[in-house]
């Protein structure tokens, strides 16, 4: 009973509270001096707050707060929120991504007005994500999903004099509003047939549901899945992703494609495993496992094939992030009722999201660095970049090969465990599609590497500055990607333990 006896229950929400307080502190700083462009102060406060939240989450995770060993999950506010290993694991992902994005934004936003707003919006979105991973009721899930989405719309349109940014923001907002309404309609249908919003009550009410209501329940589950597909940029709600990532400032793209996607998966895992248990759902004829299997294959294939045809690096990364959503969906697709392998599959998905958080954030931050230098956006513009900036290009090479899943990097193990656990659970066809797609992805990832290292530069660009913040963030991401290779053992162990607790 470590921690649960030492600290009051509400402190289990510590990471989310720290993030929210940091956002408010930034508002106060901006109120005192609205015209300030003191990037060091604003970025510093944000990084300190985020790292504090990360530290608390990691400490809780190490101490076993909310895990089986210390008395099980901690529920708060009449079970509306729950703190367990999974929510802490995901909070650690969100806060690490946010910290890297803040460090990079120090340079990216330099001398821009409205900097405090940027940092507080990212912090509020991160708060929403932390709450999303902790929600135990469809009501809190919806509210925290909105808390995550609304700042994201504003962040995508942050460069308000840039047509691309504003257009991307509007598209993102329109599709987001549509999918939010689909999601909330799904919640209302599930509430109509079960009479509860709490996941556990929904599950037990579905267990003795009148067969005549199963159509309504099925449509509700389908619509809720649609809401999550939007947040995770999976087919069929993926159309916003390339537009939004390309138009948004690159640090925001990094944040959305890594943290926001992980948040969508966090809540999807909990809702589908806890509220719609597989055995009950299959009895009702709502076979969401099969639905996610099809979605996973379609998402990864579409994402990778579309990425292979891109000329713009940022757009290629956007489609590759759709492809990775497909890989992670295997975590929901390779489950079967009561199987002992369920925890392994879901845990492998979570571990992949952690590694992905580092390598994908790093890749987008490299694009931010290139945008900062004013070098163009296509593959050709990257020609010969390695001669001018060998360190950054070496880091980008690490990200690219890690995203492709080549051996000496973190991405290799996470993909390997994901596919191996799918085979172990008897879903070899998912692993086969995943492996085929990974092979294809090597083609377009290596195009970036080839452009940077092998192609001759036309000598038209001049790298004028060495932005410290962007460099530091990219290096942290690269070191994270590399360290996660030898350090993958504890990560996958933690992930699979906390995932198994979800099925218990």
């Amino acid at each position, binding site marked *: 009973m470590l921690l649960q006896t030492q600290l009051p229950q509400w402190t289990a929400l510590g990471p989310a509270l720290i993030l929210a307080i940091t956002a*408010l502190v930034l508002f106060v700083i*901006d*109120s005192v001096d*609205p015209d300030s462009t003191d990037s060091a102060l604003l970025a510093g406060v944000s990084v300190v707050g985020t790292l504090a939240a990360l530290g608390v989450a990691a400490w809780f995770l190490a101490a076993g707060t909310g895990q089986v060993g210390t008395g099980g999950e901690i529920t708060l506010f009449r079970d509306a929120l729950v703190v367990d290993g999974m929510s802490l694991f995901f909070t650690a992902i969100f806060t690490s991504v946010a910290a890297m994005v803040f460090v990079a934004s120090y340079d990216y936003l330099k001398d821009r007005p409205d900097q405090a707003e940027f940092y507080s919006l990212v912090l509020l979105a991160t708060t929403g994500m932390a709450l999303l991973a902790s929600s135990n009721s469809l009501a809190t899930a919806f509210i925290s999903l909105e808390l995550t989405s609304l700042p994201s719309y504003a962040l995508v349109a942050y460069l308000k004099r840039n047509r691309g940014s504003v257009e991307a923001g509007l598209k993102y907002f329109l599709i987001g509003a549509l999918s939010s309404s689909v999601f909330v309609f799904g919640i209302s249908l599930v509430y109509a047939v079960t009479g509860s919003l709490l996941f556990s009550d929904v599950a037990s009410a579905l267990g003795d549901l009148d067969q005549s209501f199963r159509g309504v329940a099925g449509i509700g589950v389908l619509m809720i899945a649609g809401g999550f597909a939007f947040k995770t940029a999976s087919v069929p709600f993926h159309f916003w992703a390339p537009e939004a990532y390309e138009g948004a400032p690159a640090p925001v793209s990094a944040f959305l494609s890594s943290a926001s996607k992980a948040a969508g998966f966090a809540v999807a895992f909990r809702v589908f495993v806890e509220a719609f248990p597989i055995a009950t759902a299959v009895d009702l004829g709502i076979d969401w496992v099969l639905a996610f299997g099809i979605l996973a294959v379609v998402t990864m294939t579409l994402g990778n094939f579309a990425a292979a045809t891109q000329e713009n690096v940022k757009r290629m990364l956007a489609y590759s992030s759709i492809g990775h959503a497909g890989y992670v969906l295997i975590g929901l697709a390779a489950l079967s009722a009561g199987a002992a392998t369920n925890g392994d599959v879901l845990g492998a998905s979570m571990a992949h999201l952690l590694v992905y958080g580092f390598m994908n954030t790093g890749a987008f931050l490299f694009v931010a660095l290139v945008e900062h230098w004013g070098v163009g956006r296509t593959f050709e513009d990257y020609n010969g970049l390695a001669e001018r900036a060998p360190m950054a290009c070496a880091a980008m090479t690490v990200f690219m090969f890690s995203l492709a899943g080549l051996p000496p990097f973190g991405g290799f193990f996470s993909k390997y465990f994901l596919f191996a656990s799918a085979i172990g659970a008897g879903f070899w066809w998912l692993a086969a599609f995943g492996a085929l797609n990974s092979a294809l992805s090597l083609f377009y990832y290596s195009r970036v590497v080839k452009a940077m290292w092998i192609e001759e530069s036309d000598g038209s660009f001049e790298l004028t500055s060495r932005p410290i913040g962007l460099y530091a963030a990219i290096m942290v991401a690269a070191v994270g990607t590399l360290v996660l290779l030898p350090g993958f053992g504890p990560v996958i162990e933690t992930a699979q333990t906390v995932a198994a607790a979800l099925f218990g």
Partner: protein
Amino acid sequence: MNPWIAIGALAVVGVGIPLGMMAASAILRPSVPEQGKSAIYESGEIPTGTARIQFNIQYYMVALLFVVFDIETVLIFPWTVIYRSALEQGVSLGAVLAPMLVFIGILVVGLVWAWRNGAVKWVKSPRASRRKTERQS
């Protein structure tokens, strides 16, 4: 008698009176078409230009701030209703007061931020002031 018949009769009368008045005046009045009659009426001002212009965002900001206070009221009302009885039943003052103070505190931070960043400062539309000087000269 079914009470809905009375309501239906009222609806018929309610629709019938205005329609009847319009029909009666249309039959009785002389028809004199004139350009001034078909023009847009806006408090006697002569309309200038179209309605498809960029106009001041100020009202939008005020409406956003209104939402803040609106939600605040919605949540404070039930709280004041249970406040006294909760204290009488032995809930500590801190447990009753603190959540509301935190909630209002967060809203105050938001309001102060909006105020300091000029959300309630009346911005002059450059287009309108330019037009005004043109008219005076």
